[in-house]
């Protein structure tokens, strides 16, 4: 220090914006000195992070000034191989001209030959809308390989979900069970809440094969074998029902537990709810036309009739002789054999612990009830003096989701949470606006090939929520319309698409070949692809056309990235994006919301620095392209430019002319007096700027709970155009949506039928009640040969692949090890730090081992995406990330044989949602051969030809002494 008390020279400016070192979207204050970032801290007035910041957020400076930044638009040098990274600088004019010409041609002929896939971005509202306006069905975002099982499994059950749509109310919970979560998107808020919860004396249980991060501070760690949570949850449900620890009243009123189901196996209506004859309009809500068997009158009555109380258990006969059972009875029967003893064998968790978990949940939910003095009215007009809470909260993420049985496991979790009566109640699960949604939500894709027409926007949403087979997006012969085969019979409820299959499908031409692939913010030749080495080959693979001209199988590849990622090397055209500190952005409720339990929130980014080099925000690129292509949303009816730039677009664009709904919910109306819905406000950006860049509407207390059935809330949400209908959203213990698909597979009903080869699959997996099955990969694996499950975890101090270029963060995670339980390793003579091979059926990698006592003996794991390709991210080719780090993705296949002896291949995904089954992979490990231990050979395998820096990039320095604008 110069002198002890000398305060640093004055910071000249503090500007507020929103962080984007990860998808959590905290409010930050950027302190600038002489125009250089000196310090970034959390904005204390922001509802998400309340002033705290994380390791990544604090290292934003090193992202801004990173030598890995792309600073010029580039095109692949003619004749250069893809992957070689041989580029030349071009102007934006040339880039736009190339794109507009090519895309214009595609749009005028066959729009589906253009595919747009986006990674872990936060602007799906805009990218999705662009794709739709373009008219291509081929749009997908990371959701499909990320956690769509979580979203779909819960949204199809309770109308809301974890991930970014809802979460645990730790302020009031007494028991918190976290399943398969290492970090997740609500990064800082989760940490704030978790520590407060623990300090307030809450009990925290973590169910995870690995104990790190959050699990480290759990009161109890329950190590589980990967992919077996379904078994555990079903056994807990078994125990909860067997001991009567469920919240009967809650289930009766707020779920379909009491609703009668036709159980006549000969009937075409088998497995469907019995309905009254009252005709209902076709609309996106569930009409209340089901029956209960009333205990008082001992006869069927329409549900929710005043004075009625249904049986939840039993079997009854309708007047016409139809045997019926309440949904709860079927659930009861389903879990009968799912005993703790059974689950213990599968999960590796002792029987007593499974029972105790059930008892702790059930007794806490029942005996520690919270009654908040909040009056509210339910959808049936009953007035309640209080809101009741059963203070058991859960959180789950990819540990549950990223398995091919994850949808059904997630359903089991949602059902368990419902049995405990914890849905949108204090201390339990809480929704975040605009959730809850109807089950399923109303968005639909087109349902046949006619939805795709030249020079015409897509006739439906790019992604949607099928409610029955007729909503599938398939050709007349049942084959998929989409490149990734989403919404087809292979993965009917793939509500986020299957981006992880897009490249392989396009390369193979199955279902068809495309012309142009635009990748935004996804590192698809590295960490967000499975089978990485092969996919890299596919990206550079060529075919000869009839005249003998060679062409790439994926003819034109455009990548918009901000950094020198592995993906960019394969681009024909690179569009250099700005950093988050240099652009306008919106965190819109039309995308993944950042809302709080108490009401809607959205926020913006406002540039705090000028754009570097020749970078251009991708938002501006899309607006410009949309305008040049004359997509209807971007031009006037006469084809004139409608929006000056992105900020202008945000201010003035409405879902439909005059709808009053735009990307931003705050300060709408001419003078900013309205919210959620209102005319465009020319000063909206300034108003956000003046308010910490965030809009937060706090609902009246009486609208903050029980929102699935809260009349006041539902009507409020209808008035503010959040939903079209104010009908109650009953919990689907029993899922009729799934039954519809199963029925179709059984050849029943009037809907479309699946192609022959998929019938069995649909019939098996579309079970209306949750069930447990071994993962698809395990089904085609010799588990004796590959005895271990391999999973990854997110390190808290790194975001996917982007932070290896960050001089500070990379010192924390410079390379990665494979963590192996000490005893498992010793059994094979593998010492701590040894070099080993990890091998799956699909590939092998060489890496180093760390012994650990904090991992279940049948599991090995590593940090996600620390390993890098040599030379990528403008690191030196000998950097630890590439020489000592490794990527687990090489072991994971994007496709599986349908069965052990079948050549037909299908995506390595959940059969219901198409969720990528990252964590299903089975491996074996063994020491490297004696010939491989020479010092020179001590690097990880596979290795790739080192990447070179591109034209226009800054040179990397050998020493860094960052002084943030202060002169040295």
């Amino acid at each position, binding site marked *: 220090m110069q002198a002890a008390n000398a305060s640093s020279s004055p910071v000249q400016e503090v500007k507020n914006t929103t962080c984007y070192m990860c998808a959590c979207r905290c409010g930050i204050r950027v302190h600038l000195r002489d125009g250089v970032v000196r310090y970034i801290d959390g904005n204390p007035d922001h509802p998400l992070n309340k002033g705290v910041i994380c390791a990544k957020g604090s290292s934003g400076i090193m992202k801004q000034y990173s030598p890995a930044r792309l600073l010029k638009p580039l095109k692949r040098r003619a004749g250069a191989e893809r992957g070689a990274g041989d580029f030349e600088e071009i102007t934006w004019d040339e880039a736009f001209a190339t794109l507009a010409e090519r895309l214009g041609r595609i749009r005028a002929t066959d729009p589906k030959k253009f595919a747009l896939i986006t990674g872990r971005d936060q602007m799906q509202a805009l990218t999705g809308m662009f794709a739709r306006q373009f008219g291509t069905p081929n749009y997908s975002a990371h959701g499909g390989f990320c956690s769509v099982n979580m979203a779909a499994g819960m949204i199809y059950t309770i109308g809301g979900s974890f991930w970014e749509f809802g979460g645990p109310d730790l302020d009031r919970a007494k028991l918190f069970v976290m399943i398969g979560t290492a970090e997740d998107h609500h990064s800082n808020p989760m940490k704030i809440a978790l520590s407060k919860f623990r300090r307030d004396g809450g009990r925290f249980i973590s169910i995870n094969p690995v104990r790190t991060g959050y699990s480290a501070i759990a009161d109890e760690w329950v190590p589980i074998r990967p992919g077996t949570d379904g078994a555990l949850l079903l056994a807990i449900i078994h125990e909860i029902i067997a001991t009567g620890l469920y919240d009967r009243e809650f289930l009766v009123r707020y779920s379909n537990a009491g609703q009668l189901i036709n159980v006549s196996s000969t009937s075409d209506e088998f497995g469907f709810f019995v309905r009254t004859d009252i005709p209902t309009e076709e609309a996106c809500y569930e009409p209340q036309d089901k029956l209960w068997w009333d205990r008082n009158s001992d006869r069927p009555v329409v549900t929710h009739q005043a004075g009625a109380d249904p049986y939840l258990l039993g079997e009854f006969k309708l007047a016409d002789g139809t045997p019926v059972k309440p949904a709860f009875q079927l659930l009861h029967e389903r879990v009968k054999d799912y005993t703790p003893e059974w689950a213990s064998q599968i999960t590796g968790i002792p029987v007593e612990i499974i029972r105790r978990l059930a008892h702790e949940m059930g007794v806490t939910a029942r005996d520690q009830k919270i009654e908040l003095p909040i009056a509210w009215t339910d959808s049936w007009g009953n007035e309640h003096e209080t809101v009741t809470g059963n203070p058991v909260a859960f959180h789950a993420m990819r540990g549950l989701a990223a398995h091919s049985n994850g949808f059904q496991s997630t359903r089991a979790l949602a059902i368990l949470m419902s049995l405990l009566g914890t849905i949108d109640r204090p201390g339990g699960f809480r929704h975040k606006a605009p959730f809850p949604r109807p089950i399923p939500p109303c968005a639909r894709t087109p349902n046949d090939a006619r939805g795709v027409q030249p020079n015409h926007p897509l006739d439906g949403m790019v992604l949607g929520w099928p409610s029955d087979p007729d909503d599938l997006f398939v050709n007349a012969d049942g084959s998929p319309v989409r490149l990734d085969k989403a919404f087809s019979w292979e993965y009917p409820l793939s509500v986020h698409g299957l981006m992880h299959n897009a490249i392989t499908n396009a390369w193979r031409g199955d279902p068809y070949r495309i012309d142009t692939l635009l990748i935004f913010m996804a590192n698809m030749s590295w960490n967000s692809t499975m089978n990485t080495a092969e996919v890299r080959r596919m990206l550079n693979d060529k075919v000869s056309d009839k005249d003998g001209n060679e062409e790439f199988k994926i003819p034109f590849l455009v990548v918009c990235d901000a950094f020198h990622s592995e993906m960019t090397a394969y681009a024909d055209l690179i569009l250099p994006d700005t950093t988050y500190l240099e652009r306008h952005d919106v965190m819109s409720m039309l995308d993944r919301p950042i809302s709080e339990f108490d009401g809607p929130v959205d926020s913006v980014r406002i540039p705090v620095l000028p754009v570097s080099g020749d970078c251009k925000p991708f938002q501006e690129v899309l607006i410009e392209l949309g305008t040049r292509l004359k997509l209807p949303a971007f031009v006037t009816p006469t084809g004139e430019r409608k929006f000056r730039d992105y900020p202008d677009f945000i201010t003035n664009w409405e879902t439909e002319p005059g709808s009053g709904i735009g990307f931003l919910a705050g300060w709408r109306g001419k003078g900013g007096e309205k919210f959620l819905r209102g005319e465009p406000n020319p000063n909206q950006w300034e108003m956000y700027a003046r308010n910490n860049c965030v809009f937060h509407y706090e609902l009246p207390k009486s609208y903050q709970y029980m929102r699935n059935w809260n009349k006041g809330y539902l009507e409020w949400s209808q008035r503010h155009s959040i939903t079209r209908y104010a009908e109650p959203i009953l919990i689907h213990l029993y899922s009729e949506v799934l039954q519809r698909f199963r029925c179709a597979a059984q050849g029943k009903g009037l809907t479309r039928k699946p192609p022959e080869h998929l019938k069995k699959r649909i019939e098996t997996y579309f079970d209306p009640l949750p069930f447990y099955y071994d993962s698809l990969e395990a089904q085609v694996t010799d588990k004796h040969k590959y005895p271990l499950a391999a999973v990854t975890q997110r390190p808290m101090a790194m975001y996917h692949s982007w932070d290896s270029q960050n001089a500070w963060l990379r010192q*924390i*995670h*410079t390379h990665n*090890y494979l963590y192996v339980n000490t005893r498992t390793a010793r059994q094979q003579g593998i010492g701590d730090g040894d070099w080993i091979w990890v091998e799956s059926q699909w590939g092998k990698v060489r890496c180093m081992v760390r012994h*650990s*006592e904090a991992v279940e003996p049948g599991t090995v794991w590593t940090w996600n995406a620390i390993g890098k390709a040599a030379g990528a991210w403008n690191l030196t080719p000998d950097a*630890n990330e590439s020489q000592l780090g490794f990527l687990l993705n090489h072991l994971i296949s994007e496709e599986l044989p349908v069965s052990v002896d079948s050549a037909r291949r299908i995506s390595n995904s959940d059969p219901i949602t198409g969720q990528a089954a990252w964590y299903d992979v089975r491996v074996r490990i063994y020491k490297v051969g004696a010939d491989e231990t020479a010092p020179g050979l001590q690097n990880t395998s596979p290795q790739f030809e080192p990447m070179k820096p591109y034209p226009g990039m800054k040179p990397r320095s050998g020493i860094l002494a960052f002084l943030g604008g202060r002169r040295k």
Partner: protein
Amino acid sequence: MHPAFSVIFLTTLIGAAQGLFLALFTVQSYAAFKLLPPPDAHAFYGQGSLLALALLGAGLVASFFHLGRPERAWRSIAMWRTSWLAREVIVLPAFVGVVFLYGLAHWLNWHPVLMTLPGGLPVDPSAILGVAGTLLAFALFICTAMIYACVKFLREWHSSLTVINYILLGGASGFSLAAAFAVLSAPELVSFLAGWAAIITLLGLVSRAASLHRNARLQPKSTLQTAIGIKHPRIVQKAQGFMGGSFNTREYFHGQPVAVLRGVKWFFMLAVFPLPLLFLLSGMQGGGAGGLLAAAFVVQYAGLVAERWFFFAQTNHPQNLYYQSIA
């Protein structure tokens, strides 16, 4: 600890210089009492002092390599009240100065009698400078050694044996050098000096062996349990918080396998003690004394470099408990 070569050379070079000076003044004292024939002052005391000064100079140069900011070295006298390092920095130049004056006095044959001691022994400036130099030499030994010995949690160092070793090993190498040097400048003193060198070397062997013995039995006072304050018999570090190394991993780990450490130990135990002893004893008698005695010093000095390396390497800094593993 990671042995820093600047410090190894500093301590061994000035140690030899201090020993050499002590040898010079021992001869002068013996001569004063007529126990030895007076050597040629020019050649023996004068050039001997010059040799000592050269070693001191080389040591000083080496020490500067240890400093991050050598241009500010002058600041390091400030905290003499508390810091042995500051004291060393004061005593070292004082010693250099006295050696210089001592050598000069002999060189110029400047022997005015300043006073006469009761026994009739005349005291001239060189005698006073010699006494002062002797005191400073010991002070310097103590300062240097105390830099290490005073750090109580560096338990291998925190012992009076450290001080004794510094004195004896510096003394031994200095006397060996003096013996070899005497072959040229005062052949009549060779046996005397070689004899003393042998005696000090033997004493050094005893004290160094004692410290090795002691250190081999040290039980660490700090454990992972006290380092992180968790009482459990099985604690293992998984990550130290960074992976590419840091000051803490560079400064406190020698990074050598145990075999190297053991090898170095045996090497110095041979090179510092029995080999020089052999050379000294045979040099005392044989005709080819010059070569043998020179070999005695060179081997011993080389051994001391290894000894000092080992002195650092063997020391297990408690901070190392915090830096056991990367992940």
